[in-house]
């Protein structure tokens, strides 16, 4: 298995050449690359050997694993994840106990510096790391050994990227991100709660094609997926600009798909490609479904951005709050004026009718 390239595996699974090239184009688009790189991606996927991958779970809810397992489109993306031929993944692997540990130890020993480690979940540092142990080893010891000897580590989800929910105040277990736990490891962060499978796939494809991880921002997130602000790509943005806000769940504005800023949407402070690649096979994303963005891909979102239902305080540099307030007031005033005019018209009509009598 391991010596075969990706495409030889895909053709065995009945994936046509056309499907394969469509997949390569989708990946190029997700990565924000020009279509001229499609042949390069195709060539890399056809010729390069499949990388060895181990998937570690620490303080996690397996949501990122679920995100990967549930993905059905593009089908090939799912296969790419097959193809990264997981040597170790607790939730889905057949061996248990000692045999499971052996699978992991073998990769670390035999492919030192050549395998990719994917980490899901945060790492507890408090009390000697006792709050997460696997096979009698603490998460911190495992991370040091496995991530420290990997070619690169991909932190999937916000817990592995920033500490996530376990690190939310008061952080009872001293939970930290992979990069904080193993500072000398090469780590790329793919935050999100959970990670979007397409971003993970694209990161792996980028690595296979160019032999390097994609360019990242200061939070260690790849720019192709986290370079743009949700608010700037949101389909409800025209309503924000027009001062049309949902003010109560189920109100008229909510039914009409107006902006969710007043309901706590964190889109103005969040960077991710949810509005463009969406979720569940590109079906929808939270704002499209009618709920504000949590800012799940932002560091320490559970504490830094306030309750998911409280309106963001001043959005730095843009003064959105005052704008929204003023516009909101303006609309209310216009509506009040409308009511008044209507009342006046009615009053005068009634008067006229009375006069007639």
């Amino acid at each position: 298995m391991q010596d075969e390239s990706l495409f030889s595996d895909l053709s065995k699974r009945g994936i046509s050449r056309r499907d394969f090239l469509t997949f390569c184009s989708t990946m190029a688009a997700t990565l924000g690359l020009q279509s001229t790189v499609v042949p390069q991606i195709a060539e890399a996927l056809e010729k390069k050997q499949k990388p060895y991958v181990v998937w570690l779970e620490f303080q996690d809810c397996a949501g990122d694993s679920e995100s990967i397992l549930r993905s059905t489109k593009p089908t090939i993306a799912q296969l790419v994840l097959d193809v990264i031929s997981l040597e170790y993944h607790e939730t889905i692997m057949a061996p248990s106990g000692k045999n499971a540990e052996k699978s992991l130890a073998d990769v670390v020993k035999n492919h030192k510096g050549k395998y990719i480690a994917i980490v899901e979940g945060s790492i507890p540092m408090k009390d000697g790391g006792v709050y997460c142990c696997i096979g009698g080893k603490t998460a911190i010891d495992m991370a040091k050994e496995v991530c420290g000897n990997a070619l690169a580590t991909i932190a999937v989800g916000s817990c592995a990227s920033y500490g996530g929910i376990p690190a939310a105040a008061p952080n009872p277990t001293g939970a930290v991100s992979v990069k904080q736990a193993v500072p000398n490891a090469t780590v790329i962060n793919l935050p999100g709660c959970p990670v979007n499978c397409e971003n993970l796939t694209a990161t792996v494809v980028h690595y296979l094609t160019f032999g390097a991880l994609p360019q990242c921002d200061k939070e260690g997130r790849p720019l192709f997926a986290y370079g743009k602000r949700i608010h700037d790509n949101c389909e409800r943005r025209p309503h924000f600009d027009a001062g049309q806000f949902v003010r109560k769940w189920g109100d008229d504005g909510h039914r009409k798909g107006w902006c969710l800023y007043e309901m706590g949407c964190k889109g103005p402070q969040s960077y991710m490609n949810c509005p463009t690649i969406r979720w569940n096979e590109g079906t929808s994303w939270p704002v499209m479904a009618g709920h504000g963005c949590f800012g799940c891909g932002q560091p320490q979102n559970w504490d830094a951005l306030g309750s998911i239902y409280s309106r963001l305080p001043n959005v730095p540099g843009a003064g959105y709050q005052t704008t929204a307030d003023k516009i909101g007031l303006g609309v209310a005033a216009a509506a009040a004026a409308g009511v008044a005019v209507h009342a006046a018209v009615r009053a005068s009509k009634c008067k006229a009718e009375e006069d007639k009598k």
Partner: protein
Amino acid sequence: MAKIAIDPLTRIEGHLRIEAQIEGGKVVDAWSSSTMWRGIELIVKNRDPREVWALLSRI
């Protein structure tokens, strides 16, 4: 009389360790331990109750 331990127990969600006491080919006693703790009960304390579903659904 032997004692066996299976850790990690795979194909489940979460981390689990099972120990069993074996006598004459039969399990006579067994212990299970969850080997991971985050303290989510403590994390949701004093938070806006409306957002607690979002944290607790990520157990």
